[in-house]
């Protein structure tokens, strides 16, 4: 029995070491991509001295718009949504449980751990998907993924994680594949206008596209959900993805589709170690 216990312990150690080595392998590959990505933005915007500034989106590179944005942030239009989200978060489900029962640390101060790759289901788990999974596992109907209650819940949860840094891992080959799918989506040209995400948010950012300057891609995921002046309300990152796709006349994917979750995974990894500052305001 003692021998069996020793054998099991040895095997566990070996498997853990192999898994860690595998995880390190993929994290290193992604780290190389992050370095190239950051070098691109460092060369494009030499005046942005600290990468942390990119968490403010286009306001990191557009001084005039930044002044207006800072004034708006004095009385942020998303404040009521945070309150609404807190109320929803704390309201018990019909079975008496709350959202806190589904998340580590009771759902507080965890936003920076999303999205992550769920090795049990082999898929990217976003915060909004986890919120709806929590609802359905407690007998509640899922919420729509673009705006309204889910955006308010996400806003509240993000607000409890402000200034925490994204810490996203690539634990195995399946996770790396999801990352590559997101990367491929980001650089693929789509729609009648034949534009990739990277065209607007890497090649063109810094210059005007019609009336506005598209925000730099780095830091995209930090501030969501966002209150957009155009929407007049709070919306999720996947709502924005759908809008971007429509703008180039590409048929959008469904919010929380594998395509958009993988894109979020890629974008968040590119924003690794940056502060959470959601919810925030955008044009």
């Amino acid at each position, binding site marked *: 029995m003692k021998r069996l216990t020793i054998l099991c312990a040895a095997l566990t150690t070996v498997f853990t070491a192999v898994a860690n080595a595998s995880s390190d392998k993929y994290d290193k590959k992604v780290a190389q991509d992050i370095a190239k990505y950051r070098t691109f933005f460092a060369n494009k915007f030499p005046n942005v001295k600290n990468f942390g500034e990119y968490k403010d989106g286009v306001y990191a590179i557009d001084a005039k718009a930044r002044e207006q944005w800072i004034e708006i942030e004095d009385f942020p239009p998303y404040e009521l949504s945070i309150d609404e989200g807190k109320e929803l978060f704390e309201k018990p489900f019909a079975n008496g449980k709350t959202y806190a029962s589904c998340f580590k640390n009771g759902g507080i101060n965890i936003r920076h751990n999303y999205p992550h790759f769920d090795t049990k289901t082999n898929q990217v788990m976003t915060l909004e998907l986890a919120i709806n999974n929590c609802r359905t596992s407690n007998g509640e109907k899922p919420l729509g993924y673009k705006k309204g209650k889910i955006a308010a819940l996400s806003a509240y949860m993000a607000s409890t994680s402000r200034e925490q840094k994204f810490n996203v891992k690539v634990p195995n080959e399946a996770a790396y594949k999801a990352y590559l799918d997101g990367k491929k989506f980001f*650089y693929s040209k789509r729609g009648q206008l034949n534009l990739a995400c990277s065209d607007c948010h*890497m090649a063109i950012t810094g210059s005007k596209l019609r009336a506005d300057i598209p925000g730099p891609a780095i830091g995209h995921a930090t501030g969501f959900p966002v209150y957009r002046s155009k929407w007049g309300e709070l919306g999720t990152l996947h709502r924005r993805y759908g809008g971007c796709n429509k703008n180039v006349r590409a048929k959008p994917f469904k919010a929380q589709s594998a395509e958009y979750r993988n894109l979020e995974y890629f974008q968040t990894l590119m924003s690794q170690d940056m502060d959470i500052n959601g919810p925030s305001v955008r044009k």
Partner: protein
Amino acid sequence: MKLIKVSIIALVLSLSNVAFAGGDVNKVIAKAESTLKQASKSGFEWTTTAKLIDGAKKAAKGGDSKLAMKLAKKALKEGENSLIQAKYSEMHWQDYAPK
């Protein structure tokens, strides 16, 4: 009598012409739909193509075969371009990533 015969022949010819044109339009619409389906499956459907097909169908139903053909051909071209875009992106997306 001769006039009646000529009129009947002209009428038959014109009706067969309409039916022939309608058949062509339906074929182009069917091809456009099939191409759009492939584009959708590849994840590269454009938002404009399905609207063109709907327009072509409406025009054909309303008897405007000229407009129907114009819209159907445009939809087919868009569907084909979407597939070219999908193929191009598959082969070249890495060209746009920072080196």
